[in-house]
């Protein structure tokens, strides 16, 4: 640290100077914070104020600076000094805006501000500017697995933006499910008629593209490495093996139609009952002529049974809606009507789901004479000559039936997502404990893998729900749990061709971003651009494997010596590994056990006779900390006894911080994380949940210390909880008051 020079800058604007004793803060920064340079400025974020800092960096050799002003979420652009390490002491939103007005609060307000200055100075002492890790040899090639419409679209989208693509397709031809279609639904005005599918044209474009290398009859036999350096073994059906190196992966492995044979009550498996794919086959065979059944009879009447084996609450079939099937049946009904208006085509639906301009397509089909019946099919009987559909007519409110030459069951999409990792983990655990059946099952599972990742967490992408490899986030549909690997098309979510085209294009962009980020050593979403990465002091490692197990992104493997092996390019910089590590050997350059621990220690703990408790808040920087900020912006007041520290994720909270805090005389610790459970809000998957779990284990420690369990409080706080968070703090301060101050004061 020979070249380091530390400076603190205190802003006196926005009322800070009017409310606080700034000379005292300066003195603290200098004396206690050990800042070489301490300056205050009436308007630090102004051009003039920023120049003051820039000049000190340039002329005074300042390398580390603590800005004591507003929240780290405010004036970010003004206070961006890329060459320097920066900490922020939040005197505005965190102190003067939240401590009640009035002279009687002057003392506690000032103490709070002083502590934040101490904390900011302590933190900066432990921070380094992340150097980043630019990789010269990083691959920017994109691997697309699956050669259907989604895969081809993704490949072409990336290639057209200048990126090389390797496309692996299991079958002998490009096109996928689209090859089975006679026509597709319309994508553009006037949304009136079924359109040519265009799969062959797309396939020709892909095959002929200079930037795309297509492997047919091939599968991915093994994937290792990380974004920017995935080593992929492509196995040809013929037995050949090709090695490739790719920067990112798009999985576009599509779907399999739900098997109609599982719907015997709806005639599934009977000759004159087909699924939508079966009808496409009949239409293709007819090639524009009259559509005939398997027995050669020309179809003069047809009934489409919607939601067959879908939207099923019984647990037997698919619980979800596949979204496309209403429009698909409408399209298929027009196959008949466009050729012969005399054919009776009935669509039997419960809710007709054709959003957006699909409404026009619906109208167009009605205009062509397709009949729509709101009804619930109870039974389909194939009598050989005609099929009988028994159904409840929901409008006429009666049980009735209808006869037709052919019945089409609109069954759903089942994703081809590969291995379910929950099953995988259970199987591996069982296998490792010697269960022979589990060992066999593990091998079977591996055969069904799509990506064959050699990640510790399993060979495929984690599935979100019902087997779809989707993101958990509404705002971020491509927020993957396997960095640099993106699902696209119906494997991500049930969807139609139009949406799959959008989805594949979007996924291609994310893959491009992934290779660019990997090459520059930058984190991917949500800490995008973060150049820090975790480093472990392996000499202290006990090989407990907690970091490898708990990493939500599968970023950490184990090396031959069973030490954790960090794959920086897979890492999302949440710090969960840091929170997990019992021996505290994992750290980031600018975020570590020390950067937080030193802040905790820097707080001045008054002795018990002063009757001023100290409560530590560890707040998730994405939800809880902004909520605290907004409480300030709204001038909601809360107890001046709290000291809040933002953390990257509650998962990064190492319990040592809590025990250290309690040991050194804090009276309580509040952990504020985001919602956990099925609808979790944590962008690092289980951070909040793990923190709750870990702190639940602290009780024993507390007992040893002779402390009440209430001294540690874990909370879910949403970003909108500004009023609630103020109340939570005040209630907790009150509770601490009732329990009494910590007996640990003075020992720390």
């Amino acid at each position: 640290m020979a070249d380091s020079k530390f400076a603190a800058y205190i802003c006196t604007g926005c009322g800070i100077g009017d409310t606080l004793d700034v000379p005292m803060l300066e003195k603290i920064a200098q004396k206690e914070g050990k800042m070489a340079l301490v300056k205050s400025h009436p308007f630090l974020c102004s051009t003039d104020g920023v120049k003051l800092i820039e000049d000190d960096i340039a002329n005074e050799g300042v390398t580390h600076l603590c800005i004591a002003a507003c929240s780290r979420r405010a004036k970010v652009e003004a206070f961006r000094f890329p060459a320097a390490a920066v900490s922020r002491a939040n005197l505005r939103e965190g102190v003067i805006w939240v401590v009640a007005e009035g002279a009687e609060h002057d003392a506690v307000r000032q103490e709070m501000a002083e502590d934040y200055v101490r904390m900011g100075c302590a933190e900066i002492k432990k921070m380094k500017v992340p150097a980043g890790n630019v990789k010269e040899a990083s691959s920017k090639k994109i691997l697309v697995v699956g050669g259907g419409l989604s895969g081809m679209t993704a490949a072409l989208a990336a290639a057209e933006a200048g990126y090389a693509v390797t496309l692996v397709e299991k079958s002998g031809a490009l096109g996928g499910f689209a090859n089975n279609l006679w026509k597709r639904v319309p994508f553009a005005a006037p949304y009136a008629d079924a359109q040519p599918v265009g799969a062959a044209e797309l396939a020709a474009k892909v095959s002929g593209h200079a930037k795309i290398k297509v492997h047919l009859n091939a599968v991915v036999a093994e994937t290792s490495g990380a974004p920017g350096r995935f080593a992929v073994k492509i196995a040809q059906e013929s037995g050949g093996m090709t090695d490739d190196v790719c920067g990112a992966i798009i999985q576009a492995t599509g779907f399999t139609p739900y098997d109609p044979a599982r719907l015997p009550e709806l005639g599934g498996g009977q000759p004159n009952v087909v699924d939508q794919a079966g009808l496409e086959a009949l239409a293709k065979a007819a090639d524009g002529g009259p559509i005939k059944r398997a027995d050669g009879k020309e179809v003069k009447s047809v009934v489409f049974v919607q939601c067959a084996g879908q939207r099923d609450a019984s647990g037997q079939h698919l619980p979800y809606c596949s979204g496309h099937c209403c429009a698909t049946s409408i399209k298929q009904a027009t196959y008949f009507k466009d050729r012969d208006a005399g054919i009776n085509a009935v669509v039997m639906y419960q809710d007709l789901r054709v959003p957006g301009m699909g409404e026009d397509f619906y109208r167009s089909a009605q205009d062509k004479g397709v009949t729509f019946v709101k009804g619930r099919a109870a039974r389909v009987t194939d009598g050989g000559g005609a099929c009988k559909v028994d159904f409840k007519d929901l409008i006429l409110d009666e049980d009735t039936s209808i006869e037709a030459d052919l019945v089409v069951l609109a069954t759903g999409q089942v994703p081809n997502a590969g291995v379910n990792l929950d099953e995988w983990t259970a199987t591996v655990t069982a296998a490792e404990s010697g269960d022979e059946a589990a060992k066999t099952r593990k091998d079977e599972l591996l055969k069904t893998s799509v990506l064959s990742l050699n990640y510790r967490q399993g060979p495929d992408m984690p599935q979100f729900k019902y087997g779809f490899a989707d993101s958990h986030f509404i705002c971020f549909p491509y927020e993957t749990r396997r960095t640099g690997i993106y699902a696209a098309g119906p494997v991500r979510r049930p969807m139609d061709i139009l949406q799959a085209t959008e989805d594949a294009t979007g996924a291609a962009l994310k893959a491009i971003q992934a290779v660019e980020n990997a090459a520059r050593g930058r984190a991917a979403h949500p800490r995008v651009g973060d150049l820090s990465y975790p480093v472990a002091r392996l000499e202290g490692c006990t090989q407990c494997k907690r970091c490898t197990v708990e990493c939500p992104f599968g970023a950490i493997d184990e090396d031959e010596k069973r030490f954790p092996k960090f794959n920086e390019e897979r890492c999302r910089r949440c710090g969960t590994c840091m929170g997990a590590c019992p021996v505290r050997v994992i750290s980031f350059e600018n975020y570590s056990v020390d950067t937080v621990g030193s802040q905790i220690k820097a707080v001045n703990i008054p002795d018990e006779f002063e009757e001023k408790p100290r409560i530590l808040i560890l707040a998730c920087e994405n939800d809880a900390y902004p909520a605290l900020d907004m409480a300030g912006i709204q001038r909601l007041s809360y107890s001046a006894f709290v000291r809040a520290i933002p953390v990257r994720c509650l998962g990064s909270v190492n319990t040592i911080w809590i025990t250290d805090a309690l040991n050194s005389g804090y009276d309580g610790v509040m952990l504020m994380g985001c919602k956990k459970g099925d609808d979790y809000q944590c962008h690092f998957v289980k951070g909040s949940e793990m923190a709750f779990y870990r702190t639940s284990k602290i009780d024993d420690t507390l007992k040893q210390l002779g402390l009440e369990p209430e001294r540690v409080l874990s909370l879910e706080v949403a970003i909108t909880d500004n009023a609630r968070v103020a109340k939570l703090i005040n209630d907790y301060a009150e509770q601490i008051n009732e329990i009494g101050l910590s007996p640990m004061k003075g020992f720390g």
Partner: protein
Amino acid sequence: MSASIATSQTILVVGGGIAGMTAALEAAECGRQVILAEKQPMLGGRTALLYRYFPKMCHPVCGLEINLRRLRGNPNVRVMTMTEVTAVSGRRGDYTVTLKTRPRYVNENCTACGDCGNAVSTTIPNPANYGLDKIKAAYLPHGMAYPQRYVIDPSIVGTAEGEQAKAACKAGAIDLGMQEETVTLKAGSIVWATGWRPYDAAKIQPYGYGRIANVVTSVEFERMADPHGPTGGKLLRPSDGQEAKNIAFIQCAGSRDENHLRHCSRICCMASLKQTQYVREACGEDGRSTIYYIDIRAIDRFEDFYQSVQNDPTVRFIKSKVARIALDEQSGNPILHGVDTEGAHRYANAHDLVVLAVGMVPEVTGVALPEDILLDSSNFIEGSQSGGMFGAGSAASPLDVNRSVQSATAASLRAIQVIHQTASTEAV
């Protein structure tokens, strides 16, 4: 914000809602230069005015916070608020764009300290609450506003109040002499992420919006349910301020209707299902929600949410397009008249409050767009003839948030392709 000069390598994104922010950020994070132009004084668009998202019931500002952090950390994006595109000329790879910026009367010096707001007493309808309440004429548009800067409403410019606001500002941030500015920029590709606006409910005359106080729109109801909204999250009736417990939701208010909007707006079914849970949140078991619908369009795994709401005993479903709403003058209750078409049962149901699930109108409806732009029959942007401009999000199709982001991500890559191909051509 960087002061980079726009070139044909720049992507212009019009609209700073979630789709526009996504399109801009995705391109910027691929290393591209982007200008993001937003009409309002802040980014976030419609989603910032929602209380919760379906089906997770999470808060939209959570995603906004992440996107804003991405934005603050990325010098590739230049944000222009209060700015509209007034003209586009040129062609794919080489557009010239004229942008008009309205005066904010507050410059970059603003620290959002709030002194100007304290100095002013004039109030204006609060745009962040669809005008359901008032705010000071010197205001921060939203708790999460980006830029985090106050706005002086033009109504107090040139008045003593304006001068008071100026005098109160210690940062010298208020400039009452600010004028409308017009700039001309180059862009290689343009993404139109101009979003949507709620259909004018007053046009659906039989529902009495504007005539019957206790008939509100779904977007207004979002604000009423939000603790940060005009009623502090209480579901209070506009007529008398009483708590509403028995609430009707009318689907397809404007949508799927050739007298109004031809298209299905897609989000409204899910939005109403979500809003029934606001009623539950506010009233518990005492709440009563009734959804009047034609088809419930809860697509893909949203079906789960539909099923869970169906299992909620406080929620009732009636398959019926409500014919008309009458007012019971005594109670202020709207009376819904119609027929449940499942078996033809006539009803005249009184409710405390009626929420119209209003449809999505493309924001560009009625706006002069470049001739090159292709619109569908409802004015959604299909693309452009020359292929250099793209629709994204709900400007392109009535989409929910997730699909808007998907669409915007795709549009972002299409814009990058144009830039890439332009650069390759220029290099040759």
